[in-house]
């Protein structure tokens, strides 16, 4: 009887653990699929794309995945090809701040030479606005 109870507890714990894992990996899979579908950014990009980048960045901050980080960096590079507005750096802010050791090498590899320089300028401008305002 005791063994039976223990088996039940084990099965329930296993089910709960696997469902949590599934939820996390489902989110990652969704972001991965959506990012992979972007080969080129149309126009200047839009809030839908910005939201996807921001959400992916937040997910990576919480739960690191090298593959997803590579995909995020690739799409961010595509975005910088068409939109060089400084505030876009905030979109990847969470992963840059919390996972800089892992993410920055991936980002630097993904950014073109031109975008790498641009990214630096954008960050400087963003920090300047944060400090001095925009008036």
């Amino acid at each position, binding site marked *: 009887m005791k063994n039976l109870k223990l088996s039940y507890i084990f099965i329930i714990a296993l089910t709960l653990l696997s469902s949590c894992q599934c939820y996390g990996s489902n989110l990652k899979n969704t972001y991965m699929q959506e990012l992979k579908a972007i080969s080129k950014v149309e126009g200047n990009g839009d809030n839908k794309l910005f939201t996807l*980048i921001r959400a992916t960045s937040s997910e990576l901050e919480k739960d690191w995945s090298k593959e997803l980080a590579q995909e995020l960096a690739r799409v961010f590079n595509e975005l910088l090809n068409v939109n060089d507005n400084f505030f876009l750096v905030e979109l990847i802010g969470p992963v840059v701040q919390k996972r800089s050791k892992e993410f920055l090498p991936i980002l630097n590899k993904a950014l073109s030479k031109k975008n790498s320089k641009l990214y630096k300028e954008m960050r400087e401008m963003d920090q300047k606005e944060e400090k001095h305002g*925009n*008036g």
Partner: protein
Amino acid sequence: MIILRANVAKTLRYHVNLPIESLRDIVSRCLILSVIRKTIIFIAFITGLSVEANLWTPESLKESYNHLNTSSKKHFHKTLLNVLERQSLATKYQQRKIKVYTTSHSTQVLDLLFDQAFASINDPSIVCQFGGWMTHIENGECLPPWSRSVRNDPELDIFGENYRNSCGGANLFRCNPVIFGPGDDDKGICTTTDDSDPNLATTACIEEFNKDPDALQNYIDKLADDPEHLAQYLAITIETLRFCETQSDPFSYCNELSGMLEDISTSAVACSTEESLISFLPDIMTPFNEEEMNRITNGLGQKAIEYAQDLETRQFLIRDQNKSILEQAIRDAQADPRLKDTITRIRDNADECLRGLCSGTRYSGSKPATKSIAKCAAYVKHAIFPYPSERGSRFSEFSEYPWGRDADDAVEGDNWLSDQGFVNILDYPEMSHLTPENAPVGAIIVYEKLNSRRTTVVNGQRRGAPGHIEIKASENEYISDFINDEPTRVGGLRRPIGIYFQIPASVDDQIQEIPEV
């Protein structure tokens, strides 16, 4: 025949009688029906019936039940009775909450369930009486009013202030002053008792209250003169009556307390002014307590409903009138040549480097119109308050140019915009539905920045770091120091906090106040 004698919970009768869109509405409130549903789904599954859970109604549930074979119906009965039995044991107090008798094997369960009232102490609409305070029931136990979860529960606000004045010692309990009077310190009677036991604490409060022979009459007089206080008293009375009625074996204080509350309530209502009391009653009425309300107020519950309906109609009419006035004011603002020229200016300026604002960037005389240089507030100010040499109508003279450090951020836009008669139309409830996407053309939109350590205080409210400010120049054109084809929400990192138009102060005189309960 099966007889299921459960505690009579009027709440469930209401649930059953209310229009029900789907069974989900019921099962969210009633464990018994939830089990029926699950059992039928299970039986239907094993017998191959097609079941669509979202489409369950009492009628379809009955029909499905009738289609079950005898063996399945027996299984259904067994499961149901097991659940009822389990529920009857789900309390820490030694009282039976549900009595279950099986006298035969007839299968009229669903008729019985839907035609009669069944519920349990676990019904979420039932709250518990504990020393005059209304508290929650958790796992069949009445939570003490001093517990954090009860004190912080906004759902209990209709019963007045929560338990906050400790009596300053172990085994001392503060009786609710709304019910038992102010005591010596105006905060409520302190009594010596086990403050974790609802029976002992409530009984002690009743005893303390009854020590003063004049207490009853004095309290009735006091309540009759204070309709707001009386409404709170009625709210507690009604829920206490409902709480005591849901139990087959009521708490020991129930008889005495219910009688006392009902007597004081009916007497105080009789002595009070009907008009003033009615205005407070809608606040304490719920879909479940109308019967008790009518009983102890001699029918005022129905009048309160009529009062609330009338008030709602008036509120709707006034909101509608206010909305029309504001929409007209916005149309007038849009027709103002100064706004038209502001839009022209900001559009023309988007590809220019104004007043050396491009310094520190790679641009000097001009820049791409879609490129931001982190000077949105400066460009919007330039458009609204241009130099005298610049063409077009203007909202203000250069001498009043708001260029100081006090106005350096977009989020601080409210300060300098309101100086020039601009009004955040989101502050009007009738306009609070507006977003940057559906705002009228000409709107000046202010955003705060999220996820930032820096904060700003605007009009006494704490806001984020420099966010963004832009003018909606046309349906798909939002301009500041750059032109964007959609609101600059930056993937959710900018939150709109203001939508401004210059609206004359006289409009406020036309806006009527919405009558409240």
